[in-house]
């Protein structure tokens, strides 16, 4: 149990996917204009990560032991098609949830955080439960980063910033400060990489 908590906290705070590993930067800079959108994207991310973790574990345990050199291709193809399938399923079963996640589901598939999750899980030899906890933690961390960033940007929108720095440069500097703050979690639970 203690180990699971360690994995969760480690993935969410100490080694936050976005702010410490630079994964999933496209949505981090692309869709953090509004808080609500950022939060929904985060939820969709958690969801896709859990599915990915399960799919990657199944693949690794039953198929890829026989052909490890196909790992990358198998992961990306299986993840993309699984997410597409789940998307159709949700659309049929729960239109409300589908509307909430919306366009983000298919986009997330090509997010580097998802593939990285599968690769990290494999290289650290996590089991099924550990993998799912890791995925949930990483997803929560991503959501946290997205929501924080969106909040900061909504605030910056209203403040008096020199026109020169507006846009990508300011977002990067803000992200740098956020990342600096997250470094404060280093060493928590002894969960360094």
């Amino acid at each position, binding site marked *: 149990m203690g180990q699971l908590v360690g994995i969760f906290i480690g993935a969410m705070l100490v080694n936050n996917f976005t702010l410490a590993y630079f994964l999933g930067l496209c949505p981090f800079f692309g869709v953090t204009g509004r808080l609500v959108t950022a939060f929904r994207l985060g939820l969709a991310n958690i969801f896709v990560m859990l599915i990915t973790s399960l799919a990657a574990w199944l693949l690794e345990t039953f198929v890829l032991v026989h052909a490890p050199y196909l790992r990358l291709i198998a992961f990306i*193809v299986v993840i993309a098609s699984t997410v597409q399938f789940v998307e159709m399923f949700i659309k049929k079963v729960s239109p409300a949830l589908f509307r909430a996640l919306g366009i983000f589901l298919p986009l997330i598939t090509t997010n580097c955080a998802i593939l990285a999750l599968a690769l990290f899980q494999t290289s650290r030899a996590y089991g099924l439960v550990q993998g799912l906890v890791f995925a949930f933690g990483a997803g929560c961390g991503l959501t946290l980063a997205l929501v924080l960033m969106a909040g900061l940007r909504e605030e910056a929108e209203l403040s008096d910033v020199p026109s020169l720095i507006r846009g990508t*440069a300011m977002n990067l500097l803000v992200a740098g400060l956020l990342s*600096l703050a997250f470094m404060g979690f280093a060493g928590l639970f002894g969960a360094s990489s």
Partner: protein
Amino acid sequence: MSAAGTGPGSGREPSQLYAELIKGVWKENPIFVQVLGMCPALAVTNTALNGVAMGTATLFVLACSSLLISLLRNLIPKQVRISTFIIVIATFVTVADFTLQAVAPAVHRELGAFISLIVVNCLILGRQEAFASKHPVHLAVADAIGMGAGFTLALTSLGSLREILGKGSLFGFPLFGDSFQPWVIMILPPGGFLMLGMMLLAFAWFKEKRQKALLRLDEEAA
């Protein structure tokens, strides 16, 4: 986050091949102008050598994928083109991954999962979708090499600056004496964000200055 490149028209028309080759290096630089492929650009550029290795691996994958996609562009059905691109890219990334592991194990260990993650670099998929799948082979390869070179240039300069400030060395050779106090934060994750932010800021400043100077020239001429 949009593709730039419609600057003031150049006076004479250079050959198209040359134009496609050169545009990625500076005018449409993937990192500094288009802001694509950020994840690897920030994650592995804590030293200049890592920047070069990552840039070269990306260049290789981009050039090979563009070559193959451009050759197959009339055979790939429109509905499944994205999946086809991804599979082609993943194949070449696997090649690059194993090659690097055999040739430079130390660098491979340092870059870790980020070599595999070239698959989901939006720059590569973007070039296939926007260029290679619509243009003949020689132009597609020229475009890929230009973009890859621009990417490598950006990663190397970012890595060099971070290494100089954070470690006081360049490509592993110490530059300053013993009295140098390294600015450690620069080689840690926050340094990546801060350094790229400052570089973009500097470029924006130069651009504004140049535009003002041009404006003044126009006014004087009028």
